[in-house]
């Protein structure tokens, strides 16, 4: 029982990063009704970019690396928007999707080339700290990851619900044409959505690197799949859904790993997805059916 709780709590804390990735996918989908399949790769790429700081300033503290990853994420997000969405006309829905797949491969290969495919160490914070409650332990670094993720989510929600940009974003996600007629510059909102999700993704990538202790290009494919699973389970377009689903997937994944080992773990996560697709295809927070 204790092992179960332990695995679940570690998983849930790590799952906050899945939640952030899920939010990124779901926000772009909500605003532009398109999937950015390059998102997870871009987030890992941003995390790698954070390491560049260490090249220039070898004694840089971990938070500097995280900040660099955060900023790099925003830049990469904007680049993905330019290369995959800005120039392609709306009448061809498959083209942007394919372009993001191209970007996914491109980013992956750039990472492999710049690092020769070798995993890179990532700075961790509080990784030597353990909080104990009797037999139950909470890793300090995971706790920090959880805390930073939650702060990020709060910041994002504040942005969406308390600022004019957030209002414009929500307007565009509901009725892009009407929003345009009200004077909202949809192109700008879309670009900003990519920048914002990029920032969140960069931070998520850095946090993943910090909890695992290292980054490797092999992380991108599983993270893409998991991020998409979180998005679907949470309900496409729903941020609260992505949050809950991220925690759920993180927790389940770790528990599956405890009982069935690493190789079978991912198969069970798939089964979780299929269970949702069969019983609740709209996701946890399925949007209400409307008149249209």
């Amino acid at each position: 029982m204790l092992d179960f709780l332990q695995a679940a709590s570690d998983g849930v804390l790590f799952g906050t990063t899945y939640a952030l990735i899920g939010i990124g996918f779901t926000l772009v989908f909500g605003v532009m009704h398109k999937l950015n399949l390059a998102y997870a790769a871009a987030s890992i790429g941003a995390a790698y970019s954070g390491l560049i700081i260490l090249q220039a300033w070898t004694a840089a503290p971990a938070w500097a690396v995280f900040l660099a990853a955060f900023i790099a994420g925003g830049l990469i997000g904007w680049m993905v928007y330019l290369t995959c969405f800005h120039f392609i006309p709306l009448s061809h829905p498959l083209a942007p999707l394919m372009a993001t797949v191209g970007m996914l491969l491109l980013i992956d290969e750039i990472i492999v080339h710049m690092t020769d495919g070798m995993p890179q160490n990532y700075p961790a914070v509080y990784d030597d700290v353990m909080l104990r409650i009797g037999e139950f332990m909470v890793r300090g670094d995971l706790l920090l990851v959880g805390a930073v993720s939650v702060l990020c989510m709060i910041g994002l929600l504040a942005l969406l619900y308390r600022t004019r940009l957030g209002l414009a974003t929500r307007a565009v996600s509901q009725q892009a044409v009407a929003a345009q007629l009200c004077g909202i510059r949809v192109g700008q909102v879309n670009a900003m959505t990519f920048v914002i999700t990029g920032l969140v993704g960069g931070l998520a990538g850095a946090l993943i690197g910090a909890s695992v202790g290292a980054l490797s290009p092999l992380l991108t494919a599983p993270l893409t799949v998991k991020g998409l699973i979180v998005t679907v389970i949470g309900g496409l377009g729903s941020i609260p859904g992505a949050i809950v689903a991220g925690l759920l997937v993180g927790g389940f994944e770790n528990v599956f790993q405890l009982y069935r080992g690493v190789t079978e773990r991912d198969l069970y996560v798939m089964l979780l997805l299929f269970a949702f697709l069969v019983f609740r295809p709209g996701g946890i927070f399925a949007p209400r059916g409307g008149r249209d």
Partner: protein
Amino acid sequence: MEFYYGLAQTIGVHTLLGLSAYIVLLTGQVTMAQAAFFAIGAYTAGMLTVLAGWHLVPAIGAGALTGAATACAVGFPALRVKGLMLVVATLAFGEGVRLFFFNFDYQVARGEIRVGPLGGEGFRQIRFFQENGWTTGEVMLFIWVFVLLAMAILWWFDRSRYGAVLRAVGEDELAAQSVGINLTAVKVSAMTVGGAVAGVGGALYAHYTTHIEHANFGVLLATFAIAYPIVGGLRNVFGTLAAVVFVQALLVEGLRDLGDWRNLLFGALIVLAMNLRPQGLFGGRRA
């Protein structure tokens, strides 16, 4: 010359993979599962020729059948999810199949050695062509018989009422339903045909490369599968063929001068192609 035969073999097999995605894409379903059906065809046919001593042709048929059956089974639940969720579901299914083969062992003793799939190490010694004395040129022609057959069948579908119905579903499901088209039947049938074509492709792949493993059938192959018809355009089957030739020839050329950079080139190429010609190489007004 051997080199060109080998290239033609690869183009042929990849064309089958692309065609399997083409027919599903016509109905508006973006599927990342074609690599999985390809894998199922590959392992099925390989196991039948190596472990059960079957001749290749019926083994290919079995590969087509298992590919089709799996696709049909996947098709029904896949219908409950729309559009982009389908991408996720099929992506997850594809990864699931890959993981399955990663864990799959079935070996039998053949003389002193053991043959058959061995989990992460894959399935080696699929030597039907070698054991029966086929030359590379003959293998290439054999593969292309199937490619041309598949292209002819899909071309025929395209000109028939079925093809128009597929495209109607792909364009507007609501309108299609309202004129009496049974969406489930149409979408599942397209998936099934796609699964059969992928199964044939996989069966041929297993035999000309002689060694297959789970890593061959991952997200990258699933991406190639839909990239071909999208980059080639959905106007007709030739678009997919053109895209395969375009990609493989460029990659192979790239391979010579740039070595490892071919995947990088592939990614950049796709991004460029989608920006310059979003309707695909052969896209635009329907033939």
